[in-house]
């Protein structure tokens, strides 16, 4: 990477951060409040002997909202980036950092939720239990929950970026037909990690999760291949004329 590309990537990342900042802040605030309210209601009406985690259900939101952000990356930001004098290569680097950054924020948010929930249960002498498999056993183990969520969400956002780029490049028909293929990176990461709903599904199908070290390194490899593949792909995309 040349010094100019490095400098321009930094500027582009700053611009992307400013662009995504508001929507991410709103998402975090809304989900936190929603689950605090839901949690309070559940606690007030639940059978005292049940200790099922409420926060665990937030995993759907923290996966699929960033997925939608990934889908929009190329369609919304590539034309603006190129029109603002960035190369596609620089956009690709910035978007890659964006994918990792967005999923990192979600991982910290999710882990913080597990931690708060653990403390809340601890106040009544209980320990939250989880309905689906995870790499961690207890909510306070943020050093495990952060990478778990980070990797899974990154797989989803990267797949979203691939899907959005394919739609921008080829229109709706081809990518819609190819959707099962385009979603593969997310499914592979989910299957290898075998956590959350995917872990439950793998359990139900009788598959055993690979050893954690193998799951994590394989997922990182899948992520690296996906991100570098999309990066190469976006470098070939022509900017479409926008409708006036």
């Amino acid at each position: 990477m040349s010094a100019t590309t490095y400098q321009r990537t930094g500027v582009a990342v700053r611009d992307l951060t400013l662009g995504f900042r508001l929507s991410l802040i709103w998402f975090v605030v809304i989900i936190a409040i929603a689950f605090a309210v839901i949690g309070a209601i559940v606690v007030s009406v639940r059978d005292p002997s049940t200790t099922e985690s409420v926060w665990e259900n937030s995993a759907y939101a923290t996966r699929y909202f960033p997925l939608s952000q990934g889908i929009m990356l190329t369609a919304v930001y590539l034309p603006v980036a190129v029109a603002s004098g960035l190369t596609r290569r620089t956009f690709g680097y910035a978007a890659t950092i964006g994918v990792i950054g967005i999923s990192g924020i979600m991982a910290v948010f999710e882990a913080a939720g597990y931690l708060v929930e653990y403390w809340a249960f601890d106040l009544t002498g209980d320990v939250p239990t989880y309905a689906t498999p995870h790499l961690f056993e207890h909510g306070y183990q943020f050093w495990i929950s952060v990478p778990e969520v980070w990797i899974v969400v990154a797989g989803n956002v990267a797949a979203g970026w691939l899907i959005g780029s394919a739609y921008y490049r080829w229109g709706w028909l081809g990518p819609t037909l190819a959707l099962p293929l385009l979603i593969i990176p997310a499914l592979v990461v989910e299957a290898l990690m075998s956590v959350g709903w995917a872990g439950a599904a793998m359990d139900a199908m009788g598959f055993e999760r690979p050893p954690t070290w193998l799951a994590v390194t394989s997922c990182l490899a899948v992520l690296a291949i996906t991100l570098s593949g999309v990066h190469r792909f976006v470098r070939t995309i022509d900017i479409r004329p926008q409708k006036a």
Partner: protein
Amino acid sequence: MSLGIDIQGLTVRYPDVTAIDDLTLRLAGGKIYGLLGRNGSGKTTLLSLIAAYRRVREGRVIVDGQEPFENERLTQQICLIREAGDVVIDGDSVGNILRRARLLRPTWDDDAAERLLELFELPRRRGVSKLSRGQRSALGITVGLASRAPLTMFDESYLGMDAPSRYAFYDALLEDYMEHPRTIILSTHLIEEVARLFEEVVIIDRGRLVAHEDTDTLRMRGAAVVGPAVAVDDFTAGMTVLGEQRLGGTKSVTVYGDIGEDARRVATDWGLELSPVALQDLFVHLTKGDHA
């Protein structure tokens, strides 16, 4: 600083049409060019290739000695404002769009942007989706001018702007160009409005180069002959007539073709007045034909 452009054998084929057909063109840096062509003549495609919005697949586009596609050094020095405003994201505010341009354009001028916001009465905090069509165009023009890119191109960027705003744009562009000379290309259909700005004119039709000359030379390719109707008719007999108007006994005929010194002397003797032809008349003549 300004950038020159060298286009060699450029061809762009779409599935149903050839948008650019073996185009060769050289534009020196530091001038204002008018890029004229009918709808579908390939103007936007050409500008998009120069600005690296699209990859060149046949032929070459060279800007300042290098190909611009994926060229980090060049792309930050090239600014193309298309009619729909690629620099504008619907959910953004005016202020955010200027903030992005300030970040990404190394030659950005904040003071110029402020002056243009004021000139076009653009509210900084308003969302882009709440701007009128003309205001969105004015925002694109603000970004284009304040970017101070050594190669700045406007492609029908005035869409929806009222006449006072368009004239304000032309004045602002000229003033800015005088203070900060650079290469500017204006693609437009409002030829007579903008003609005074052009130092050179490029006319393309169906992707092919029809004319590339400095504006005065091009306008001298024809003449408007004004005088007594009978004398005008006699003088223009056998010439290619582009248009004519009559008011009482006075007639004005626009003709295409060289008028030599001898003919000019005859015209003076006959009491006829010869003036350069209007660019728009020439353009219509040079590009008329079977267009679908």
